[in-house]
Each structure stands twice: as C-alpha cells, then as structure tokens.
C-alpha cells in the first residue's frame, strides 16, 4: 500500500511540475508571437492561471509526503522521539482537515459555477474547470496526511512511506 500511494503521489508531482513547464512553453510561444507577428496566443493569461493552479494542486501531495511543510521545531528539540511522533501525528491531522475542507468545498464550488454557466472572458472556457482541477491534488494530499497521522500515532517510522530515492 505504501508503495502504491508513494508512486501515485510521485506521478502527481511530476505531472504538476510538467504542467508548469507546459505553461512556460505556451507563454514563450505567446511572447515570441507577439514580438514577431503581432499575434500573441489568445487568452494566454487565462491559460497561465488555469495551468499554474492545476500545477500547484498536483504538487501538494508530494510536499506532504516528503514532510516539506515548514514547521517551527525550535521549542521541541529536547523532547523524546515518541512525543515528537505524537505531535507530528497531530500536525498531520490538522493538515488533513485543511486539505479535506478545501477539497470538499472547492468541488462544491465547481458545481456552483458550472450551474451558473460561468466561463473565462477571452476563451470562454468553462470556469468550473479551474475549480475541479484542484480537487484531486487536495484529495490525495488529505489521504497522504491521514496515513502519516496514523503512522505517527502508531509510532511507525514515517520514512517507510517517503521511500529513499527522489
């Protein structure tokens, strides 16, 4: 189970960063087009907004898996390992709640703007895409955080989920 969850999270991250690279290609194309043929890509700003939002959300589960969220560990340096594990379990739980709330409510938001027929200004793309695109990343991040919380509380070594490479 750990391996499957880890692999899925890694794919999300690779896809997320690749989406940012794709945005970079699109923007460069648009700038070159604007400079040479006076023809930027129509709606490049909208595409950047959507692409980067998707990119970020896909990156979140990996950040969670690697424990890369910033914490203040100055005040707890002297505590014993089991106590620190329990605190980290609590921290993972707090994040899981945050991810769950955002994933759930963003999905509801997607339905709202879909039912209202909202679209983007220039390209007329359905607005709900922006909302719906965020849900999978937030949802997977919630799952990862819950597994981590369980591992911390069970005093299991969290690096078993992280793996070693990459």
């Amino acid at each position, binding site marked *: 189970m750990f391996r499957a969850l880890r692999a899925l999270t890694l794919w999300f991250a690779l896809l997320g960063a690749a989406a940012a690279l794709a945005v970079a290609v699109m923007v460069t194309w648009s700038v070159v087009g*604007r400079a040479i043929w*006076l*023809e*930027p890509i*129509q*709606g490049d*700003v*909208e595409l950047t907004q959507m692409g980067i939002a998707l990119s970020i959300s896909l990156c979140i589960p990996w950040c969670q898996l690697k424990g890369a969220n910033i914490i203040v560990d100055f005040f707890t340096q002297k505590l014993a390992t089991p106590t620190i594990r329990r605190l980290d379990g609590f921290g993972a739980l707090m994040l899981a709640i945050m991810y769950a709330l955002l994933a759930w409510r963003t999905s509801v*938001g997607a339905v*709202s*703007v879909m039912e*209202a*027929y*909202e*679209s*983007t*200004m*220039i390209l*007329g793309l359905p*607005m709900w895409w922006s909302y719906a695109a965020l849900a999978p990343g937030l949802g997977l991040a919630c799952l990862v955080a819950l597994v981590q919380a369980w591992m911390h509380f069970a005093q299991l070594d969290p690096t078993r989920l992280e793996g070693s490479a990459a």
Partner: protein
Amino acid sequence: QEVVLKFHHIWPTAAMAPQKVIGPWCDKIAAESNNRMRCQLLPAMSGGGTPPQLVDRVKDGVDDLVVTLPGYTAGRFPKMEVFELPFMVSSAEQGAQASWDFYQKHAKDEFPGTKILATWVHDPGFVHTSSKPVNKLEDFRGLKMRAPTRQTNKLLGKLGATPVGMPVTGVADALSKGTIDGYVLPWEVIPAFKLHEMSKYHTETDPGHPALYTAGFIFAMNQAKYDSLPADLKKVIDNNSGAQLSRQIGKVWDESRPMARKLAVDRGNNFIQLSPAETDRWQKASASLNEEWVKDLERRNLPGKEMLKDAQDLLAKYKGEGNAKK
C-alpha cells in the same frame, strides 16, 4: 441590538465609488435606522476571494452587501449583458434607469438568492492609446488592446485590434512597457490608475452616437439577510434602493467624467474627435455583436430579439426624457 452588514467591494477606500456612493449610502441607512443598522466595510477585496466570486459570495451569505460587475463572470448573466453591447448607451444615468427597468422586467431570475438594490452602467467608454493614434477604423490593425469585458473583447476583435485580457491593475504597467498599445475605458476609472499619464491619444466617438461601450454594475444584498431584518429596517433598505438609487448612482458616474477628462486635457494629451461618418463605420463594423448576443440567448431558449428591442426602447425612452428636460 445592532445589525452589522458586511459590505465587500473591489475598490480601495480612496476611489470614487466608496467615497461618493458606498460611504454615503452606509451613512444614510445608519441615520435612517437610528444607528440600529450599520455597514462593516471590507474594501479592496479584503474579505478574501476574487472579484468574480463576489456574486456567489453575496448569494451564499458570505458577504451581506456587494457592489460588483456582472461582466466579471462571463456567461453567467447573459441577459444583463445586453447593456454591454457596443453603441447602446448614451449616458450612465440613462443606462442606469434603463437597466433597472430591464432587470425588473426580464432579469430577476438571473440573481437567485440575491436582492438587487440597484443596477447601473458606467459613463461612456473610449479608446486610449500610448503611442499610435487611432484616427480611423483601419488604425486598429496590429494594435494590442486591453479589453475589460467579454463583449469589449469581441468588439475590439471586430474593429481589427488584437484584444489582450488582463486585470485593470496591470494596464499602466503593460502600457509603459508596450505589452499593450492601448485600452478601452470610461474616463471615471482613469485617474485612479494614473492612466492619463501613460496615454498620449484619446479617441472619442461622435457624441451624437451612443457610447462605444459601457459595462454594467450591480449593488446586491443577500436575500436571507434582508428577510431576517425586522419590518422597519427592511423599510430603510427599501427606501434606499430601486429605480431612484440606480439613477442617482448613474448620475454620480456621469458627473465624475469631466473632472477625470480634464486631467488628460491639462497634461496636453491629444484628443481625437471622430466624425459622425467615421463613428458610423465603427458601429457598422461591430453591428454583428448584437446578432451574436441574440443567438446566444436563443441558444438558451430565451427571446433574445425581444429583449434586445426592449433594452433599446428603454434607452430611447430615457434619452427622450433626458433631452426633454434640457
């Protein structure tokens, strides 16, 4: 006990709308309710979210009161969009009156869960450019122009320009760098972003024609919040909303125009006044937008043709009244 209404809007406090519309309105309802009701102002989106989300926020009761532009959410208010078509509206005051009547007659169902207190449009929009003057229709060719709404985006395309989408906050910077060559905006917003300092040419269509474009505004309240008020406080809100308020706000927009325009005159910017004949050419070039709008509504099984006619008739009626007064 005191009722606090969370009033969320897009402008920084020093802008024209908070100073001349929102602030006075809040003072008035406070006074008329003997301070049993007041606004808690959340300027410049400080309550969170994005401007397009304001319509959902007031519907859902996140905010109690908002002022926003239906045009921010393209496709959501297809009926009210009629006032954003080119060469429709002649002044903000007339546009405000017509849009209120039109809203009452046709568009109430576009705002479920929301109590609309006023609707209006801004003062006429014009063409402003930084280095290349627009003297005639052909001059749009190759110009990168920033468009504020879906309809102006289409309009600029029809006129021959390349429309670029960006928030109004980015216009000054984009202009100074040549990312865009110009923009369309009404005079009212120009001083707030110091755009007159970035522009060299202002092309104004013939004043005998309706405005090149306008964009609509709504002043909205959460319906449930309104319903929860005791009868006497409801009455205070009722007394400060509707046709009268809409018209008055439209007037404020019209009145802010000469002052803003004077700033550009004083700087020695070049003003280009289009002849009636040239304005006619622009109007012809963009006329197909009306048909597109009608088709758009018909695709949603709405009587687009009648509604367009109604909007035009209402505008004509208030234009007539305005002229009669003069």
